[in-house]
């Protein structure tokens, strides 16, 4: 699924719904519609962000910068 140009929440939902049927089957897919809507909305928000090319992912803590081991 593309990141840019940004998806709408509805486009993301259609992609996730189709993936759900392929991955888990139609019955299970119908049970997770609410969860998929929520993820689709988040995908649309994050996909629309303008992030500079040089930005690296932030995976979590960076103890070397913030902490001195005891």
């Amino acid at each position, binding site marked *: 699924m593309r990141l840019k140009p940004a998806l709408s929440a509805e486009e993301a939902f259609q992609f996730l719904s189709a993936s759900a049927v392929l991955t888990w089957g139609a019955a299970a897919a119908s049970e*997770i519609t609410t969860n998929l809507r929520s993820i689709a909305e988040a995908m649309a928000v994050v996909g629309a962000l303008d992030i500079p090319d040089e930005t690296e992912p932030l995976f*979590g803590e960076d*103890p070397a910068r913030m902490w001195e081991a005891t």
Partner: protein
Amino acid sequence: MTTVAPAYDLSASDLATRIASRTCTPTEAVSSALLRIDELEDRVHAWAFVDRETALAQAEVLTSEAANGDLRGPLHGVPVGIKDVFHVQAMPTVANSKTMDPSAAYGDSAVAAALRAAGAIILGKCETVEFAGMGMPPPTRNPWNLEHTAGGSSSGSGAAVGARMVPVAIGTQTGGSNLRPAAYNGIAGFKPSHGAISREGLLPVSWTLDHPGIIARTAVDLSLVFDAIARARPVSPLRTGPWRIGLVREFFLERSEQPVVESVERAVSLMRDGGATVAEAHLPPIFAAQQAIHRLIMSPEMVTYHATRLAEQEDRMTPRHVQSVKAFSLLPVTYYIQALRARRILKEQLALLFDQFDILVMPTTPAPAPKGLDSTGDASLLSPWSLVGFPAATVPCGLSNGLPLGLQLVGKPGSDTTVLAAAEFAESVLGLLDLPF
């Protein structure tokens, strides 16, 4: 005539002081806690497991040591609870899930080992939402009103301390799971900077968002326990005031019910009277995306951990947990990476606020504990600080319809001791809440 408070009603610091001065013994402290559990557990359901015999046996040993003036550490003889997602030697780890084998043996998690080294006595494991994530809530009830949730996912940790069963309990926070139950139960809570307390021996929800946390009677207790279990000391220098406070109205007060807004405004006014300077702090535009960023990071990390469980034990997982894992598994990896990049920008821009302020303040939750046990409440005011890993504390700041409210204090990464000092300041001007029973 003065009345001596029963041991169960003492804060950890008061209890430790009395044990050190030999006016209370660890055996008396543990016995008092167990009696309190006997009195209230049928109604509150804070505990997944209590090991009475081992706790009393350890208390006898620690009592002998204290009698000889030999204290293991700052928590010598203090009874504590640990959320049932941390491994503790000779105790089951079940995580409120039928997929976990209660007969499996584990060694101590880093947190449990640190507590023991400080002299604490681990009474047992506190109830949790299924795997501390988006699964089934436990049966835990709020001691302030049994018809309401105690919050979660550290439900039992919050209720056990709130009901005065133990003065301290350990929780975790991936979104709002440590500070929310602390606030709902009228007590203090602390989520340190990400990485400040070891996650070794903790069942994960989401590796880059999970924070072990502390729930205690008072802010002083939070500092006492953090000093004992932190794996590292913050590099950021300690500030002790006069406090430069940034009140965050955007998003945080805007989402809150009127009694919460009034309670926070009153708290800020009292802090100003106490010598603090207060100005409004303004959030960067990217903050509007924080909930989406959090969701896209937590979802794939959580599903990766539970993928094998889903494949092998789906019939033993609750439908709520199964549905979350199945849905989250479908997120394209590019969105996870993009969310991690967005988190870096959000963190850097939020950190700039601390050029102007020592501490940001806002409500801990937008409303008091909701009625019923199906939901553990709203974590939306807490998850931004879990996302960026900033230290955050909560102290009680009033009541709404007889249920506690919390004031949240947030600092820059690595300023944990400053946040705890600010929490002590806030608590000193706001006072503590007394349980209605």
